[in-house]
């Protein structure tokens, strides 16, 4: 018949159409899976944290740099104090700090950080205190040799050195007849340092009792020329040659922690020797039962032993501005 196409089997006639449909369906399924994956990935996106934590980010670098600067300042302070006269020291150290500033800034700016040290002329750029000393024994000076007295009230102890030349045999040996030097704080408790002779022998006991009651001690042979006890370094030195320096762990256990203490002596007649105590207050503010008015054997001398320097550290995550106190040790 004209115009009529030859009949085809249904399956053969629809094969190309079904193929296209299958392809389209597969494409839709594939796109759906990809979209699903993207959505799930986006919703579950988790930032990598491990590379976001380092010393600089956390602020540890600010501590490291501060400690390095502090050490450098202490070294320079010691140099100034050792090489310049009293009236030159403050100006010289101030000039030294100014000269440190630019190199420090340049060094750290290369690493994206701003670090600076300054010493402001106002406020209290230097730390002054008092050295209390007496080379005539541990009894209360100029006061009928009272063995129990207060060396200083409500002070921070910066440095302490004792020289013990003898113990009083007449009082007897043992802890009950000891020379006691106590650091009393109503909140933190009392530290007590004792000197006494071994009841069973010639040895000398240097004993420290903590606020908790825990006692540590060092023992040394019988006194010949005497022992020098340095609380800052935690050492005991034989006076005769000055070279036999030995550490005493009991001394380093004393933790006065920049708190205010009353420094008292009991049993001052139990030992002989001399002391040198550096405190944070100027002489006029040191309250003591010792007489420092000139008639006394004991001395109260104003000294310069530290400085305050402003430290600044800025990085992308850290903003830090603090005052560093430089007080390496006592100086003449």
């Amino acid at each position, binding site marked *: 018949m004209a115009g009529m196409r030859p009949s085809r089997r249904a399956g053969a006639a629809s094969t190309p159409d079904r193929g296209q449909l299958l392809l389209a369906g597969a494409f839709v399924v594939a796109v759906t899976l990809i979209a699903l994956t993207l959505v799930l990935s986006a919703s579950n996106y988790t930032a990598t944290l491990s590379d976001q*934590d380092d010393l600089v980010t956390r*602020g540890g670098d600010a501590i490291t740099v501060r400690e390095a600067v502090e050490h450098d300042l202490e070294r320079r302070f010691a140099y100034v104090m050792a090489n310049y006269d009293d009236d030159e020291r403050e100006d010289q150290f101030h000039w030294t700090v100014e000269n440190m500033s630019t190199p420090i800034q340049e060094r750290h700016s290369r690493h994206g950080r701003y670090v600076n040290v300054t010493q402001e002329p106002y406020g209290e750029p230097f730390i002054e205190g008092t050295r209390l000393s007496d080379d005539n024994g541990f009894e209360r000076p100029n006061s009928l040799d009272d063995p129990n007295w207060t060396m200083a009230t409500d002070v921070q102890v910066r440095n302490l050195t004792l020289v013990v030349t003898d113990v009083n045999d007449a009082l007897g040996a043992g802890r009950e007849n000891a020379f006691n030097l106590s650091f009393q704080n109503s909140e933190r408790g009392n530290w007590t340092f004792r000197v006494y002779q071994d009841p069973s022998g010639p040895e000398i006991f240097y004993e420290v009792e903590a606020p908790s009651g825990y006692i540590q001690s060092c023992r040394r042979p019988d006194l010949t020329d005497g022992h020098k006890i340095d609380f800052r370094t935690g050492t005991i030195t034989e006076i005769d040659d000055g070279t036999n320096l030995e550490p005493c762990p009991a001394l380093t256990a004393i933790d006065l922690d920049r708190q205010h203490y009353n420094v008292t002596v009991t049993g001052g007649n139990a030992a002989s020797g001399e002391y040198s105590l550096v405190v944070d207050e100027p002489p006029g503010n040191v309250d003591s039962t010792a007489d420092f008015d000139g008639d006394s054997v004991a001395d109260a001398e104003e000294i310069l032993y530290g400085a305050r320097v402003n430290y600044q550290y800025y990085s992308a995550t850290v903003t830090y501005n603090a005052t560093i106190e430089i007080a390496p040790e006592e100086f003449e």
Partner: protein
Amino acid sequence: MMDDRALSSAVTYALTVVVALSLTTGIVFGAEALIDSQREQTAREQVEVVGEQLGKTLSTAGRLNATDAEPETLVVERSFPDRVAGSQYRILVAGSDAGPDRYVVYLETVDFDINVSVAVRLSTADLRRTRVNGGRLRVRYHEPTRQLVVEHA
């Protein structure tokens, strides 16, 4: 006879689609369970890392505060993620029974039942008890109260 036994094209097509959908659905459901498990594990690991990093930051801020004079300015900013594995999380800073200088940082997620705690010891400053959402945080020394404060940056 052969034509009688064959399936029609519509049935063949329908079967193909059904099989394809069944396979896809199976994959999706199977993947969902796997992904949920992985999300929870990832969220737990992330809040643990955030907690450790925040704890270290607090310890470092405490060390920065350990100067003779109180710091005039002390701020440490940390960019923690707003979400972990798609879930928000909260941070609670609290005290500890272990001692006056001991603290605990608790982290909990919103979508999962995850709670993580990190112990922090600060001997140089008090740590203010507070609750913040995760994200960009700032640890700041508050001089009037002598406290370290955790807050949003």
